[in-house]
């Protein structure tokens, strides 16, 4: 268990178990038990299984999160059209009620499972696990999980996905990352949607939206799209294809990838399940070591509406799971060409697993 090797001790909680720390003491008349586990340990455990399931089948799993109506289903419809072969992907839909979204996906010839959560505000790893058992994953490369429309709760639950994509439609306001830091910190990609409306909106500044994302500590890339108008879909697809290549490289190397940020015990992996009597053996070796290639396409829309796009590819290989991303620094936004600051933040210390 973790207490043996100390891998659940992080910079943030080390003081607790230091000599004289609160947890080193016991109180009269009571048995004090040190636990140091995420409250969502059980969910995280299931998520680990889901991810192993995806990896064993060579599947890349992407979790889409946004407020209701930001265009998650429209993005999926455009993705199906762009991917060409509907058999490449399946979709797990989360909503409080109705089969509407699954019906829209099925109308495109793609298999979809609707999870009606009732009043639950998020999907959890168990719901996704149940849905996976109802899907035919033969030959599937991509599993999209369309989370419940909500900028709060879904960010806290690891579902077993490899990547989180947070959509922000331009009608919602450019300060959303500052208002919902937990959600936007969890994003491996921020996708601004409904960008065709930028022409008629005078209060959404894409530069401010990106700055707000940087200020919550995220280096995630930003893409712009208006899937219903077909705009930006090429860049989105290039990102997916790049991530598919990266996933294949990880599988070849026997590694996996977790989404950008998970709340709580993300850094406190639990090698053993909460229930002592149920004895699975887990290989965390799979979460070590990392090799991947990315193709990133970026389309930049400047204040006056000029747009330019560029793509770049890079490959790297590391011994540890790490957060990575690109920060684009725009000097004078009207000036071309502008400088790019590629920032790779490798958080090794926090992510190392035994």
């Amino acid at each position, binding site marked *: 268990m973790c207490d043996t090797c100390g891998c659940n001790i*992080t*910079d*943030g*909680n080390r003081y*607790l178990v230091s000599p004289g720390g*609160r*947890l080193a003491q016991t*109180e009269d*008349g*009571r*048995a*004090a*038990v*040190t*636990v*140091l*586990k*995420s*409250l*969502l*340990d*059980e*969910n995280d455990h299931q998520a680990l299984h889901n991810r192993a399931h995806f990896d064993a089948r060579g599947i890349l799993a992407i979790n889409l999160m946004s407020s209701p109506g930001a265009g998650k289903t429209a993005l999926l419809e455009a993705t199906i059209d762009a991917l060409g072969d509907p058999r490449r992907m399946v979709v797990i839909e989360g909503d409080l009620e109705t089969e509407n979204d699954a019906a829209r996906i099925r109308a495109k010839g793609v298999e979809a499972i609707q999870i009606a959560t009732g009043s*639950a*505000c*998020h999907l*959890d790893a168990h719901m996704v696990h149940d849905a996976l058992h109802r899907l035919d994953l033969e030959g599937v490369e991509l599993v999209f999980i369309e989370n419940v429309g909500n900028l*709060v*709760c879904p*960010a*806290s*639950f690891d579902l077993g996905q490899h990547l989180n994509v947070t959509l922000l439609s331009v009608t919602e306001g450019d300060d959303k*990352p*500052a*208002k919902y*830091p*937990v959600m936007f*910190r969890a994003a491996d990609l921020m996708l601004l949607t409904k960008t065709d409306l930028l022409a008629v909106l005078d209060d959404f500044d894409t530069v401010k939206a990106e700055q*707000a994302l*940087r*200020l*919550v*500590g995220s280096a995630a890339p930003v893409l712009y799209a208006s899937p219903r108008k077909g705009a930006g879909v090429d860049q989105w697809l290039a990102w997916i294809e790049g991530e598919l290549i990266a996933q294949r490289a990880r599988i070849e190397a026997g590694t996996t990838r977790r989404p950008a*940020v998970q*709340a*709580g*015990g*993300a850094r*406190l992996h639990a090698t053993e399940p*909460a*229930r*002592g009597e149920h004895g699975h053996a887990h290989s965390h070796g799979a979460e070590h070591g990392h090799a991947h290639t990315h193709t990133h396409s970026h389309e930049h829309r400047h204040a006056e509406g000029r747009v330019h796009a560029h793509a770049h590819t890079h490959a790297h290989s590391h011994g540890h799971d790490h957060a990575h991303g690109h*920060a684009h620094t725009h000097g004078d936004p009207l000036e071309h060409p502008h400088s790019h600051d590629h*920032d790779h*933040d490798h*958080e090794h*210390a*926090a992510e190392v697993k035994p």
Partner: protein
Amino acid sequence: MHELSVCQALVQQLEDVSAANGRGAVELVRLRIGPLSGVEAALLRRAFPLASAGTVAAGAELVITAAPIVVHCNECGASSEAASNRMLCGACNSFRVRMVSGDEMLLESVELAVVHAAPAEML
């Protein structure tokens, strides 16, 4: 409002801790919650009695410590507190920081009533 789900998961863990440590009633629960965990301490406090009713943790005292957001600067090496939507180094203002604390949703420890084993002659 996923605090009830979180509390239900907590109660399950408390049941497990109790079962593994003599099955005593849970009397005190210490949590550490950071502002970037996505859960609200006040809502957890309200959900806990509902989630724990009828379980080994019913009536337990819930002590929640608020964890500060602390970032370590990759540029100047300083550690400082930061706001959730302004994750900058307090010393040099750099955004190249690593979060050290702030997203915790941690069950730190549990205090259980000690169950005294019945004397052998009574068995």
